[in-house]
């Protein structure tokens, strides 16, 4: 393995480990009843975010959804401020107004996440339009789930992006579920999201979203083409959410997944998959993990020590 390859692997692994460990810590501490907002974890879905993290520039834009922790972190969002936001503290990235579902860090181009399915898709397209009008050589990443492709606004936004050849990358994480509803209950069996996108005039690619390397290569190629003026593209990452839809727990006992489905995805855990297929120096892994642990502990300390916003500030920010 060449040094360049191993460093790509290392960067992907480090990015995924960081996201995983952050969310694992949220899960572990959720029952303390101090993170008083819904949380949607991406445990199992870290690879697309990690792939983007290696390709995105700070001046690129990104928007995401209710399940946005990974995307915020991968785009360079500040960890301490994210945790503080989940704790509802004034040091939070949205000053305690938005919670886990409303993360933003404009200093790194992360322009917000929305709790309404499909809501941020056109916003991401608008960011792409601004890049084009301002002739900036950047792209706009729009993270969305398979469920969001059922909203009319997805079609309308993709149409406009195609019409104007906007520098927008639709990052569709297809985890097969919208809450507890499988794709089978929502879309005809023969339907492929990539084909829908193509029919709308948006070139589209499918990739194993649990294969971090393949995801990275795909994102890198697509982004390079879009930066060169090729217009929008959609990447469909086939992946799986390992934990419950909303909250910290496992939920396989609810029986909405097919028997064996979770187990088979656990075998394809993106972190495990990369570890198994690469050569990583155990010492490097240990020190990387330790650094992440230290960073996370500091972030939770920051969050806990940050005060709640003063109720007197309630009316601030309603208008600019």
């Amino acid at each position, binding site marked *: 393995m060449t040094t360049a390859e191993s460093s790509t692997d290392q960067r992907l692994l480090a990015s995924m480990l960081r996201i995983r460990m952050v969310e694992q810590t949220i899960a572990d501490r*959720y029952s303390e009843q101090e993170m008083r907002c*819904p*949380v949607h974890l991406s445990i199992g879905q870290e690879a697309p975010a990690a792939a983007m993290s290696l390709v995105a520039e700070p001046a690129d834009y990104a928007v995401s959804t209710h399940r946005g922790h990974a995307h915020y972190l991968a785009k360079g969002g500040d960890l301490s401020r994210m945790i503080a936001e989940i704790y509802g503290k004034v040091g939070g990235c949205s000053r305690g*107004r938005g919670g886990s579902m*409303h993360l933003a860090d404009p200093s790194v181009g992360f322009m917000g996440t929305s709790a309404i399915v499909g809501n941020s898709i056109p916003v991401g397209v608008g960011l792409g339009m601004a890049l084009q009008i301002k002739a900036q050589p950047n792209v706009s990443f729009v993270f969305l789930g398979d469920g969001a492709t059922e909203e009319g606004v997805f079609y309308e936004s993709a149409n406009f992006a195609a019409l104007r050849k906007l520098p927008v990358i639709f990052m569709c994480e297809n985890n097969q579920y919208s*809450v507890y509803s499988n794709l089978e209950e*929502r879309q005809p069996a023969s339907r492929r999201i990539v084909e829908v996108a193509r029919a709308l005039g948006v070139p589209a690619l499918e990739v194993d979203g649990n294969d971090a390397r393949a995801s990275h290569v795909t994102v890198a190629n697509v982004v390079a083409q879009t930066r060169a003026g090729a217009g929008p593209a959609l990447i469909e990452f086939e992946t799986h959410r390992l934990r419950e839809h909303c909250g910290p727990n496992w939920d396989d006992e609810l029986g909405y997944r097919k028997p064996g489905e979770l187990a088979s995805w656990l075998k394809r855990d993106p972190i495990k998959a990369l570890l198994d297929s690469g050569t990583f120096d155990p010492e490097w892994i240990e020190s990387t993990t330790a650094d992440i642990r230290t960073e996370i502990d500091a972030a939770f300390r920051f969050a806990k020590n940050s005060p709640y916003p003063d*109720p007197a500030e309630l009316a601030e920010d*309603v208008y600019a």
Partner: protein
Amino acid sequence: MPESNDDRVLTFAAAINEATEQAMAADPTVLCIGLGATDPGGVFGTTKGLVEKFGSSRVFDGPTSENAMTGIAVGAALAGLKPVMTHQRLDFFLLAMDQLINSAAKWHYMFGGQFQVPLTIRLVIGRGWGQGPTHSQNLQAWFAHIPGLKVVVPSSPVDAKQLLLASIHDPNPVLFLEHRWLHNIADHVPVEATPAQLGKARLARIGDDLTIVASGYLTLEAIRAVDYLSTRGVACDVLDLRTLHPLDWPAVHASASKTGRLLVLDSGALTGSISGEIVARVASEQFSELRSPPRRLAQPDIPEPTSLGLIQGFHVRSQQIASEALDIMGLSLADVAEHLVAPEPADAPGDWFRGPF
């Protein structure tokens, strides 16, 4: 003789479930549809067991497509079915405003009364536990503003059951607004499938000094306040509106003219609210009967923040209601806080509510 049911207790959620089940059993045209309708959770328990009983052509989940699914339900209703649609949050339903307002609410009128749209849309209003700006909105005044829509706001298990039955039977589109803090409230509910009458308020407490107009969850807070007020020698009418459109104006006017004092509670934002409409009508039609200026308690004109730190005092609760009432009566507020302890933590209806939504 049917089993005596005077003492049968159901939760608000179970009462909704029972009403839906009874309506579906009695009428094969009733459908139950919406994201989560067949989930393990069954929309907070309200749709549990229905798919097993009535099958997947009448009870089904669907794509995340609120606007299309609403229009599809309108079409189904035009063709003689009675869909009951559910949405886990009112906020999600905002994507369906075109089909609600331009189709559902207009079809009957626009074609000269040739069509009916017997569609019931259940919307859950999420509150507290960091539900935040887009999972907590109560836009009841918006809906009540649209001619052609009916807006129902139950506050108790029995009303949940009987008003839902009435909504399903009604030949018009009806929005049924369920406050998330009510789902676990339990009370007596008759077994019989007896519909209530839409447009009729209920006097939940009777008194000559002050009229408190409430609806939905705020009725519970009003009753707590009024029970305390009675120990202070203040006797209040608590009028639980039950429907916001049509609104029971005769009941509002009668109580206001009896007491001459009016306090209107509203769980929507103050500006442009239902409470504004009520105060306006009472003031313009009964001005000379009033002994003091009408007052309102509503949500501030501010999106609901997630932070527990910001949520203190955000929601109207019994302590505030009692204080406002005493102030109207010119009485001291001194010991209100002692008797109506502000809930802790402020972002939950009680200990049983432990997140994540």
